[in-house]
């Protein structure tokens, strides 16, 4: 588990798979989730294998999550925002036709 060395300060509230998380502002969704102890953040469309952020710099695309209803967002490239809804991505994304 990641531990933070940050001095306590203001937080923003995001939701991950419905559960509320109070996280420090100004960091990526991926960093926030990992610091909060989240393990897998998606399952691959083909094999259903669990995946989590790997490179944290936007090149591996393993950290794909659903953010505010939009799928396939790179969690490491999006900054947390108060009220943000994050969901783990299970398989292929659903579009409502």
């Amino acid at each position, binding site marked *: 588990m990641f531990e933070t060395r940050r001095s306590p300060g203001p937080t923003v509230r995001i939701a991950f798979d419905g559960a509320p998380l109070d996280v420090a502002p100004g960091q990526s969704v991926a960093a926030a989730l*990992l610091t909060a102890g989240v393990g897998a953040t998606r399952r691959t469309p083909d094999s259903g294998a669990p995946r989590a952020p790997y490179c944290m710099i936007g090149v591996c695309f393993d950290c794909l999550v659903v953010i505010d209803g939009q799928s396939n967002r790179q969690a490491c490239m999006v900054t947390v925002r108060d009220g943000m809804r994050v969901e783990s991505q299970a398989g292929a994304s659903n579009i409502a036709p």
Partner: protein
Amino acid sequence: MTVAYDIAVIGAGPAGMAAAATADGLGLATVLIDEQAAPGGQIYRNIEGAPLADRAVLGADYEAGAALAGALRGSGVDYLDTTTVWRVTPENEIGVTRAGAARLISAKHIVLATGALERPMPLPGWTLPGVMTAGAAQVMLKSAAAVAPGAVFAGCGPLLYLIVGQYLRAGAPIAALIDTTPRTNIWRAAPLLPRALAAGNYLAKGLAMMRDIRRAGVRVIRGVDGLAALGEGHLRAVGYSRGGRRATIETEHLFLHQGIVANVNLAMAAGCAHHWDARQLGWRPACDGWGRSSVDGVSIAGDGAGIGGAQVAELDGRLAALDAACRLGRIEAAERDRRAAPLHAARRRDLRIRPFLEALYRPADDQRVPLADDVIVCRCEDVTAGDIRAALALGCPGPNQLKAFTRCGMGPCQGRLCGPTVTELIAAERGVPVADVGYYRLRPPVKPVTLGELAGTAPSGDTPGGA
């Protein structure tokens, strides 16, 4: 629809920041485009506001980025942060998206400064949650002040020792450092040492890092075989063989590193010619001494042109900007050369360490090309080394036919995490030089863009219903 600049710089790492500030100082209308929220690239990530209570943890070199960021902020550069570049056209138009809207930016000259990424280190279980790169550990430290106590670090190369040193200064316990540097490298590197000594204090810094690691009593394990990440659903332990005996270290975090390679996707999709660098074990663009690529109007600066380090990147950026200013008629060639002379000299000096470092930290062949068939090579599409070997047995001549037959390289990362492995695997299986194998044919969008955003880049007046 298009906004026109004299020069567009893509990437706000040391090369990009230096290029943009220099260009602006020479009177060029300059735009700097970067996908992060703040400047710094990777090496100087979060330089303007790392949340660590004690920034000394990150080391003195990190602070050099502050001057560059300051110069950028104080300049007249149009700095577009949180903006993703997805294409560069032959007409020097740059497709960008920001906040869900896409547009085109045109510039007379483009400097690509997209930096580097870590060479993949495919081993059994490397796709498990809990396995990340050493660079990812650094990002967690720099942007979230977070460490993973009890982690295992594995691989070779200066960046690995750097992050271990940063963890030590942060007081985070380290389960082990598994150093996979081949023992024989020292013999290959030794002849290059005299030249390396002329490169300033790189070596001294490196030796200091190793000394600190030894003094801190970090468990360092060398001479291992069969490195593997073990666990179901999440990493639980790291396994390895040593002296014929199998051992495991329990941990929930494994940070891997075996060097960095140029991030070539945007340059390749823009049509720039590349070649395989057998010493750096990666693809790099063909550039002249000013960073000019094979595409007229496009220069490449920094690690994206070939690994040279942060100081060389800064020099590359300045040189590319000077050259662009000359090309655009803003300064005479003689003026450009006069200003560039000390930069070229500093660059030559800083590069002297490279052959030594490349030889000393050259990763083992079997760490770059997995021996076991069940190791995943293409993470995006779950394609294993065995799948690739089976397709090669059908006579696939190279990575593009391989991609067609196996989907390897078809995922959203567009080969960033599998390309170098695939190139070397094909060379090994076919018994041909790596340089002859070739690489994936890359096309825009180099980063995903939505259909709606793309549709929005049509010239106004085009109706979607038109034939």
